[in-house]
């Protein structure tokens, strides 16, 4: 019989982990070789050998694909066109050109078309305007992304208020012929609604406005913003007007994607809260909106906005095509965003709502400071997922005659002076790399954000 009594007199020593578990060798053993070095039985041996062969095969195909790209993009590529031969520089002798051997990417073609890819047919003399906007955008985003930069909130506020207005005026040129009456109606109703909401929240105007004061005030502010935008848009800044028909390329891609991204998040939050509201009116409206937009393909939304919407509007109303596409994309993505955010809201334990109300926080306060910060953090992957797919879906505007980056690249293939066998491959490569850079940056930033907001808790 074993002795029941035992007493430890000395602590067992603290040892480092065995060498085979650390370093490159340990990593290889655990992650790569562990499936291939088991020869304990004939079956296991065969499996290990097969695993090894499969690994080699995949390695071979992977590396040769990578090599193919490097070979095409760099080694066999034509880099310059000093004599201005255009298509000749990227074609071999029998194709009518001067190149020797097999030709890879034709970079002179990209060089010649780069303005088209970025700005579309935006007038050459006015290119400083989109350039300025790009520079402001890059500077603003860079500032916001750097965690330690001072005044990030202020810059973010500027980027969400002044920047879009500046971009709108600079890119279009302002001086739009907007109706004065419309502007005045907007401004007056905005002021009335804002005041009503504000007084309502103080309980001056009775029960209904006490409950819905926040929404009414929000609507009023929205009207005021629209009135302000209309006002600033109607001023003559002495800039040449550039109709949106001349916009194109990356410019259109970014305008559509950024508008969609910036508009879909707040709209999505409102819709998600509405869908969980205890007030039947809000709930039904939100559900109807979400299910309508989710049930319709983006392509048909775009078609509807460009072909059918003009039929419903009073005759003579000129509604910019790009603007229509923007509204369609924004509403479409806000429905998806709403469902993402609702997922986050559902993941928040009931105790958080109770903790907030027990402290006397109002519904708005507890949503803003307790529930939404946590819910949004949970669904960062989903939100970024929607952003990324929205960014890529912008290419669909091609079908309503707007030329985004992909559209411009494709349209450049029809230029006979650059018609070579490698033109389209080069163009698509540029397009793919550009999209990848944008999407991958978003994805990395979301990973960073998740890490930053992680506060060592599960609940």
């Amino acid at each position, binding site marked *: 019989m074993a002795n029941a009594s035992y007493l430890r007199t000395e602590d067992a020593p603290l040892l480092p982990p065995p060498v085979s578990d650390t370093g490159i060798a340990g990593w290889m053993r655990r992650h790569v070789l562990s499936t291939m070095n088991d020869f304990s039985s004939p079956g296991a041996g065969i499996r290990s050998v097969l695993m090894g062969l499969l690994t080699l095969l995949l390695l071979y195909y992977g590396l040769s694909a990578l090599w193919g790209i490097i070979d095409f993009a760099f080694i066999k590529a034509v880099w310059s066109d000093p004599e201005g031969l255009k298509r000749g520089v990227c074609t071999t002798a029998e194709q009518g050109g001067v190149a020797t051997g097999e030709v890879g990417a034709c970079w002179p073609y990209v060089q010649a078309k780069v303005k088209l890819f970025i700005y579309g047919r935006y007038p050459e003399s006015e290119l400083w305007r989109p350039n300025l906007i790009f520079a402001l955008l890059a500077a603003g985003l860079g500032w916001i992304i750097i965690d330690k930069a001072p005044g990030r909130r202020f810059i973010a506020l500027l980027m969400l208020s002044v920047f879009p207005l500046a971009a709108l005026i600079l890119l279009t040129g302002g001086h739009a012929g907007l109706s004065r009456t419309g502007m005045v109606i907007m401004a007056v109703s905005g002021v009335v609604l804002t005041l009503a909401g504000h007084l309502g929240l103080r309980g001056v105007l009775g029960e209904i406005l006490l409950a819905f004061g926040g929404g009414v005030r929000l609507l009023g502010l929205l009207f005021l913003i629209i009135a302000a935008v209309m006002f600033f848009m109607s001023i003559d800044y002495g800039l040449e007007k550039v109709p949106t028909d001349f916009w194109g390329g990356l410019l259109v891609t970014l305008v559509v994607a950024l508008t969609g991204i910036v508009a879909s998040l707040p709209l999505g939050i409102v819709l998600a809260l509405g869908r969980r509201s205890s007030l039947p009116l809000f709930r039904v409206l939100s559900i109807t909106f979400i299910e309508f937009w989710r049930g319709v393909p983006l392509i048909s939304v775009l078609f509807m906005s460009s072909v059918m919407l003009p039929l419903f509007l009073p005759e003579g109303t000129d509604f910019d095509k790009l603007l229509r596409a923007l509204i369609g994309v924004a509403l479409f993505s806000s429905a998806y965003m709403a469902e993402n955010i609702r997922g986050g809201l559902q993941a928040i334990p009931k*105790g958080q709502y109770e*903790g907030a109300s*027990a*402290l006397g926080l109002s519904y708005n306060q507890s949503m803003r400071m307790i529930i939404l910060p946590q819910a949004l*953090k949970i669904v960062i992957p989903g939100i970024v997922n929607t952003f990324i797919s929205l960014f890529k879906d912008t290419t669909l505007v091609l079908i309503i005659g707007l030329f985004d980056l992909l559209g411009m690249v494709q349209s450049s293939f029809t230029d006979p002076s650059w018609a070579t066998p490698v033109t389209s491959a080069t163009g698509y490569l540029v397009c793919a790399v550009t999209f990848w850079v944008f999407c991958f940056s978003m994805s990395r930033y979301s990973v960073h954000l998740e890490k930053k907001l992680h*506060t060592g*808790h599960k*609940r």
Partner: protein
Amino acid sequence: MSEMNVSDEAVIRIRNMQKWYGQFHVLRDINLDVSKGERIVVCGPSGSGKSTMIRCINRLEEHQQGTIEVDGIELTNDLKNIDTIRREIGMVFQHFNLFPHLTVLENCTLAPIWVRKMAKKEAEEIAMNYLNRVKIPNQAGKYPGQLSGGQQQRVAIARALCMAPKVMLFDEPTSALDPEMIKEVLDVMIELAQEGMTMICVTHEMGFAREVANRVIFMDAGQIIEENEPESFFNHPQSERTQLFLSQILGH
């Protein structure tokens, strides 16, 4: 100490309160007066409606019939009254319900700043004062997820106290804690009781009830079955159900 600081002024007055969950009658004819400075322990088997009852007092649950008055204000659907009452009632939950995305200090200052409209500096001073009282001032900069259960519950108590409430409700504050952490939370609660805070505690800590309660209430099947001073309650329980309950929880 049971006579200490108790005045006749009723802070909470519950009359013929009834509550149903669907068809199920969870609270039946509850009548309860709580005087200022009184310390009440509510006990009873699981599912007896003790938590539901105290959650009705700050309207986390709605009652359907009868009246609840807190500090002279009746709880109705009036949102303004509900907010006013919640400001005056502090609540401590079984699962702490701290806000995990805010630091301990921010957890404590949030409501004073946004509900009481206190200046941030003042709120932080008060919060540090209460964190000192619950003996964790050095954790102020940490997030709740980095603290032990006992520490989190003490933060939750400090957070409720920062609003300077007239009444504190405790909903099984020690039930989710490891045994070695229960004492540190109970110590804080005992100290609070000695300072004259009006408290209603749902708890199974009978040692605590004996030490600080003016009154022990036993609930079963949604009704108040018996209430008495702790001495008589534990030594001479009147009803059979109370006797059975006490024998079960004090049995070993």
